């Protein structure tokens, strides 16, 4: 955390190396969050890029007052996703592109994982927006409950309750699907 605080302070002074390190640290996590929320790879790529450009432009406004940098960054991603979903006129039909990259080299395993992920993405669409958010942040981007609470502006207790209801709903959607 100390290391991250130092990196953020340097990035706020326009230290390019520090910002590049933060970018590498969070790029995959933000991308995964955006893909799951949007369900379309091409659009997710544009949104992810915009998240980091927005962060670059507004990093000087970030204040280290109990809010971790990760929560601030995911908050930008959340706003970007909400903005995208608001503007979007119709739901993307290509729920999961075939070209979605899976981090395994075994072709059999890749096919199985792709089916699992496709099923998961279809199932999450049946959840409420808040439930989708908690699933994406907690299980796909691997944030802690405390971090999710900061991103969503809720107490940890509220996040735990939401997490419970989200898993119950997800289980139901997965068993139906």
């Amino acid at each position, binding site marked *: 955390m100390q290391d991250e605080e130092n990196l953020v302070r340097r990035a706020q002074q326009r230290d*390019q190396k520090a910002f*590049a390190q933060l970018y590498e640290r969070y*790029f995959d996590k933000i991308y995964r969050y955006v893909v799951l929320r949007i369900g379309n790879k091409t659009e997710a*790529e544009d949104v992810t890029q915009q998240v980091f450009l927005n962060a*670059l432009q507004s990093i000087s406004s970030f204040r280290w007052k109990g809010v971790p940098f990760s929560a601030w960054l995911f908050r930008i991603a959340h706003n970007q996703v909400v903005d995208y979903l608001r503007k979007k006129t119709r739901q993307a039909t290509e729920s999961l592109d075939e070209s979605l990259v899976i981090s395994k080299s075994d072709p059999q395993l890749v096919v199985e994982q792709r089916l699992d992920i496709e099923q998961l993405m279809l199932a999450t669409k049946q959840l409420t927006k808040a439930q989708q958010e908690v699933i994406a942040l*907690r299980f796909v981007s*691997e944030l802690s409950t405390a971090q999710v609470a900061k991103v969503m502006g809720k107490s940890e207790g509220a996040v735990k*309750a939401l997490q419970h209801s989200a*898993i119950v709903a997800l*289980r139901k959607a997965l068993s139906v699907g």
Partner: protein
Amino acid sequence: MKKSREFNDILDECLERLLVKGGTIEECLASYPEQAVELEPLLQAAVAARKASVIQPRPEFRAKARYQFHSALQAMEPKKSRPFFGWQRRWVTAVTIVLVLLLAGGGTVAAASSSMPDGTLYPVKLATEQVWLALTPSSLGKAKVLTKLADRRVTEIIYMANEGNAQQIDVITQRLDKHLVMLVGLTSALKAPQVLAPSEGAEGGRDVFGGANSQAELRIMIARYAINHPAALRNALKTAPESAKPALRRAIAVSVAGYEEALMALD
């Protein structure tokens, strides 16, 4: 109410063990036998949700996004604590260089413009270029200057390849890369007027809204170099000494990627 809060805490603890600490579902159930029946299906669903964490960005997207992010980073100037004096200092530096160059004589400057990296006037050439860039007010103008500077760097790389000087090729390639990264940043800004720095003022506005022909000229210039520069470097590769070839290949890669990005940013 209290019971459900307790269960939420137990579920969260098990998830933490499962997701972060590498524990298993069975271990969690063994820790909470009374809640095991309710916990098990939820933990299985959480494990299913976790499968999406293997999704990764496409390598091409990762490379493109990284390049554009670094271009945006490069385009941002270091933060200045005293903007007025910072601005003043930049102009003082530019004026000082101009004075030195004038004192050195117009002939020296003219001779320096064609000097090569192993020549004595080469530092004068680089200093003149800095002034040229600093005194060009608009983004479009700067982009054109950078394109011309990239052309100079390619000529120098070919010259140093013939000399077999791999180290110098790498140094000049870094300069070429810097020019192209700045060019991508500026062309992105030309395409998206809202990201122009406020300090660009009316000059930036004219480029974006009133300089369609100039922008078209810039595009033609970049498109021409995007073909000619890698071709000229590949040509040099055929006759270059073996020791210079790896450095030359790096220069080719930089020129291909740089122009491609600049054209994409303009389209």
